[in-house]
């Protein structure tokens, strides 16, 4: 068995043992049924919710909000990063802001955003953008910084225009940094939107979880929770696999 296969198997074994242990603890009554339902029932509840179409509307609402926030955050973050990279002085002035940005619990702005935009989808999009855009800016700066100077010289030697230099030389060379930014931006947008729905909202998956908690509906709560966690893990896994392949190709080249 190769080393990679061994690592994969161990990881799967850990997951199976963890879920099995939880199942046993719940079934034996060591974990109270009112505290947590067994994982098999969580999965059953999730499938039931999906099949009955009960959460289809919530899913559509949450994911369209996340998608909108992600797209805006990436565009805004990338543009800011690209501009800051060009202007040294602006960048030096913005550096302390970027360094301490994630120290501010961005979430404290959410109630203000609700007051600004009203209780609809806009404050959720805004909090997603606020959480995700700086990660993209930082990723863009990291990516652009790592473009070897010789590549820019090559572009100049070939007399490429600004647009072609950007698309044919700079962007591909900056890809690892950009991808890191994208990965974080997606995760942060998702976290921001779900957290917003959870605290103060009138719909969406996060709201559904909070609502189920408030009405002692454990099956509904754990079913939705499992769904959100699975989506986050799968999305992150896909991006991570893409990143690994890209880096792999780069080191071979």
């Amino acid at each position, binding site marked *: 068995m190769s080393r990679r296969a*061994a*690592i994969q198997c*161990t*990881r799967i074994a*850990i997951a199976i043992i963890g879920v099995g242990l939880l199942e046993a603890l719940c079934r034996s009554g060591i974990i109270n049924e*009112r*505290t*947590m339902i067994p994982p098999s029932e969580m999965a059953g509840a999730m499938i039931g919710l999906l099949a009955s179409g009960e959460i289809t509307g919530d899913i559509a609402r949450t994911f369209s909000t996340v998608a909108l926030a992600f797209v805006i955050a990436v565009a805004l973050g990338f543009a800011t990063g690209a501009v800051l990279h060009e202007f040294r*002085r602006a960048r*030096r*002035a*913005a550096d*302390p*802001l970027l*360094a*301490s940005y*994630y*120290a*501010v*619990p*961005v*979430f*404290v*702005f959410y*109630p*203000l955003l*609700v*007051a*600004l935009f009203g209780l609809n989808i806009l404050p959720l999009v805004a909090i997603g953008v606020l959480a995700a855009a700086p990660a993209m800016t930082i990723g863009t700066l990291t990516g652009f910084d790592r473009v070897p100077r010789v590549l820019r010289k090559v572009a100049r030697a070939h007399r490429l225009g600004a647009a072609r230099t950007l698309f044919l030389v700079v962007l591909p060379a900056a890809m690892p940094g950009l991808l890191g930014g994208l*990965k974080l931006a997606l*995760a942060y947008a*998702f*976290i921001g939107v*779900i*957290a917003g729905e*959870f*605290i*103060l909202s009138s719909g969406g998956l*996060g709201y559904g*979880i*909070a609502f189920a*908690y408030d009405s002692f509906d454990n099956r509904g*709560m754990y079913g*939705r*929770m499992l769904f*959100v*966690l699975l989506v*986050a*893990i799968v999305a*992150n*896994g896909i991006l*991570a696999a893409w990143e690994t392949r890209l880096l792999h190709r780069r080191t071979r080249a």
Partner: protein
Amino acid sequence: MIGTRTLDALVVGVVLLVVWEALFAWAGAVAITPPLATFRYAIGLLGSGFFWSNAAATMEAFAAALAIAAVGGVALGIALGLRRFASDVAEPILASLYTIPKVTLYPVMLLVFGLGISAKVAFGVIHGIVPITLTTLAAVKAIPPVYVRAARAMRLTPWQTAVRVLAPAALPEIVGGLRIGFSITLLGVLIGEMFASQRGLGFLILNGIGSHNVPMTTAVTLLVIVFAVAANGALLMLDRR
């Protein structure tokens, strides 16, 4: 004469204040209070016992959560980082734990720990421990193997190796990890207070919304930001040394 750096910092500060003032002009007093009024209100808050009892509730939960996350995360990071296989297995698991929206788990914390400070602490810990573990793990993995071999040659016990060799060698990255862990733990505690709590700064912010006390929400938000940025600045300075 002031240097260009100071000038730039001043410009950034002024721009932020202008944006704030513009938000006020756009949204009005039902949503946000303007800078000057907020500063005045915040100073008034700082003189009141009411504010400090809530701040103390937050700080108590935050200090406990940060202590557990820091000690647990560093210990776990060192233990995993020393074993190549274990760290290869654990790293992607931890990375995906880092990206899941942990808010959704808050009801579980409440059901397990009950309403009260322990749920807030636990929630802060699950936020903060993962990034601290990940950075420590990466830092320990990057330690030149010759250090570990030297420790073995000197027949240090595992504990001595960790304290005398590994921790000093990985210290800069660990401080960086603690800086991230600090802010994420604070975020966790505040979100916990916003969702289900009767005391604390997160509760004050959300309560201000519920009772249309806009000056309160804006001022407490400002104070939380000032605290977070000041602490982050102090840790950054420590990081650079």
